[in-house]
């Protein structure tokens, strides 16, 4: 009935590195704590009052000894810090070619969207052996996206994109947990990561997941639909207009703001400009764009950003003609 597992499955590239460091720390803990406990008992018993033992020349200060037990732990601590810091820095830098998936947390479920438009709730399908980057945001309170078998987690914060990446090494099903207290059903905000062989994953993706896929719209296409629905091109067309700057070739470039600062046009910036336009104004423009915060969901924001990213460097001569034939509006889901 009961089993006593001592280690969760290690199913990502980072899990092995983590467990090595965990092991080093455990060895250090044992090396320092066990002798302290044993010696405390030995000293206490050996030097019990009444025991006739050598108590000659008791010392009360010893600089050399003090420095030894200050400096050695300090050096050990610094060494562990260095190794750990290196792992962490790598963990915070997703590889360039990482596959991107989007996560939206809300009380009390995980909502996941793949770039091709496939959506899932409380499940995340990923291929094995491929680095996956999650871009995450919360609709309400702070959550944390945690996969113990991958040894990784990151907070999912409202109003701000956070990122997490991993590379699964083993096929199978693993836990997704919310690891930041978020209200009544916090402990039910759980799900599954399903790691598949790449070909299986591609097949799954092409089949539109199970049932969550809205017709045949990829994220970019849904973004384009929204772009048209809201008539964004009225102000943000092929070229800069007096009402608003063009969005072509915007992503990844530095923008000059009215206050003289320059801002890198990344996901975070695009989201803010979309939802809270007046917060940062591009030089030469005034705040005329309405606030879309109430209008657009976080999911739609992600889709619009995905679309904006595809608007190339070169402004097309003719109106943008995306490859896929546009189907009638699906509207907002």
């Amino acid at each position: 009935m009961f089993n006593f597992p001592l280690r969760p499955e290690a199913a990502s590239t980072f899990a092995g590195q983590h467990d090595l460091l965990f092991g080093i720390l455990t060895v250090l803990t044992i090396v320092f704590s066990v002798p302290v406990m044993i010696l405390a008992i030995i000293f206490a018993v050996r030097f019990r009052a009444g025991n006739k033992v050598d108590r000659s020349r008791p010392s009360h200060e010893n600089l050399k000894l003090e420095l030894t037990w200050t400096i050695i732990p300090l050096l050990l601590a610094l060494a562990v810090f260095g190794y750990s810091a290196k792992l962490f820095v790598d963990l915070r830098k997703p590889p360039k070619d990482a596959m991107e998936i989007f996560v939206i947390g809300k009380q009390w479920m995980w909502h996941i969207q793949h770039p091709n438009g496939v959506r899932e709730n409380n499940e995340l399908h990923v291929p094995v052996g491929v680095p996956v980057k999650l871009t995450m945001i919360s609709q309400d309170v702070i959550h944390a996206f945690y996969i113990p078998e991958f040894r990784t987690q990151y907070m999912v914060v409202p109003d701000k994109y956070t990122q997490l990446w991993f590379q699964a090494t083993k096929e199978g099903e693993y836990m997704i947990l919310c690891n930041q207290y978020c209200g009544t059903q916090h402990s039910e905000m759980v799900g599954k990561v399903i790691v598949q062989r790449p070909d299986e994953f591609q097949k799954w993706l092409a089949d539109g997941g199970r049932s969550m896929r809205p017709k045949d719209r990829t994220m970019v296409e849904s973004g384009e639909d929204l772009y048209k629905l809201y008539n964004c091109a009225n102000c943000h067309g092929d070229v800069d207009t007096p009402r608003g700057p063009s969005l072509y070739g915007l992503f990844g470039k530095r923008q000059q703001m009215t206050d003289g600062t320059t801002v890198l046009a990344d996901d975070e910036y695009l989201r803010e400009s979309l939802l809270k336009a007046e917060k940062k104004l591009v030089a030469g423009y005034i705040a005329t764009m309405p606030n879309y915060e109430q209008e657009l969901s976080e999911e739609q924001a992600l889709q619009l950003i995905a679309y904006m990213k595809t608007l190339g460097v070169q402004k097309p001569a003719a109106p943008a003609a995306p490859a896929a034939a546009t189907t009638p509006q699906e509207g907002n889901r």
Partner: protein
Amino acid sequence: MSATAARPEELDDATRPNYLNVSHTIKSWLLTQDHKRIAVLYLVSISFFFLLGGLAASMIRLELTSPRGVMLESETYNKMFSAHGIIMVFLFLVPSIPATFGNFALPMMIGAKDLAFPRLNLLSWYLYMIGGGLILAALLMGGVDTGWTFYTPYSSMYSSGHVVLAIVGVFIAGFSSIFTGLNFIATVHKMRAPGMTWFRMPLFVWAMYATSVIIVLGTPVVAITLALVAVEATMGVGIFSPALGGDPVLFQHMFWFYSHPAVYIMILPSMGVMSELIACFSRKRIFGYHFVAFSSLAIAGLGFIVWGHHMFTSGQSTFQSLVFSLISFVVAVPSAVKTFNWMATIYKGNVDLRSPMIFALGFLGLFVVGGLTGLYLASLATDVHLQATYFVVAHFHYIMVGGAMMGFLGALHYWWPKMTGKMYSDNWAKIGAALVFVGFNLTFFPQFILGYLGMPRRYHYYDFAPQWQAYNIMSSAGASVLALGYILPAFYLLHSLKYGKPAGRNPWGAVGLEWQTESPPDTHNFHEIPIVTHEAYDYAAVDEIEHAQAQEVMKKEAHMGSDE
């Protein structure tokens, strides 16, 4: 070797007026300005809150024996762990040692008649009671479900509980700590007896001083932070909630700026107690006095610049995380230094294994584990996995329950004869200490493994991971042993009040100034202010005098014998 020879003035202790029997009216207790009586008031009130917090904890442990709960709704469960956290942190751990034993012993230890500001001291007890009352009211009216950390925007925008009332309670209780800290700082600076130089002060006093500095600097910040949460919750003004234009992570920064140092508010006093116990029961001057004293200050100082290690996965920049991680590793060193010095003190000592010393040895074992497991969390890469799991829960319980609570019990057993004038049963106390030690490890060690397996803290259901159940059951079983260990002292200590043997001035043969006065002491502690001529813990000098006295007595007896 325990008690020094009885002195004549000690014989009539039963009838001699002391701070306890000087007046018996309730009014005389409620309006007292005597630091010792205020300490007793605190002892009674924090014990009450500890009991409440403990009841909440037992509900939590009972509930977790089953993956799908046994009796509570999720909402009730959330309110239980919030109640447990808020009560234990703000109403028990923060005031525990400073407000009771600091209040009781600190003035005597430096040879003062009272704290610098007795009326302020009484006021701080009332503030504590008002704050505690408000928190209790919030819990009784329907509870708070935010956890003790009050993270925004959940606490300010989404929680339906009585968050504002609880926050006001914490705010007021915070001012109680501030006034206690202020009182200690002024007392230590200006009220020391002649000859009591800074480096002759007992290390408990140093620890209290370092604690007071943290309280005075940190508590106002959390007070204003929580006040801002209350403003946001009641007026709908965006400070921390992004929906209103605020920054949710800002709250975490401001909250941990206090709440991490607050951890040291809880553990530093306990370390001070350890220095007293280990020196006294090893009958030896504490090894490396200066290093132990300065490590307290180092902890107090460094403790203020490590708060970001609670936010490695909150979206703070990688550079910030690196700096905070580095300092967190460094802050572990002074604690290690203290531990090594205590070990060296026991070495070649003259160890008397009575119950306070048993608590001290228990503290050493638990504190070392608690401290070292902190490194797993200070280390960035491992924290990414362990953050906010049961590993964290186990770690801070090793520090706060294993460390602070062991220190509290050690202090209680050490100063009880001084407070009450009565001796309790040492054997029962040893059983109590063993129960606490064993029960504690049974409860919290499995939680390290649970955390490594990935069980998040504050989870009510875990039916998706049945492999966690065995450890949870172990933990709950341990908790019942632990509860027994906490209840037992209540019995034998209360029993000693009526039936205990008179303790005499100095049942432990300790050298601190507080042991030179009667037990229980007179209202003004000393009949005349002592003049200090020795270093702290100068057991060698005392032993020499005692040895000489004993030889003189022997000579006299031999002489008398030959006369007959």
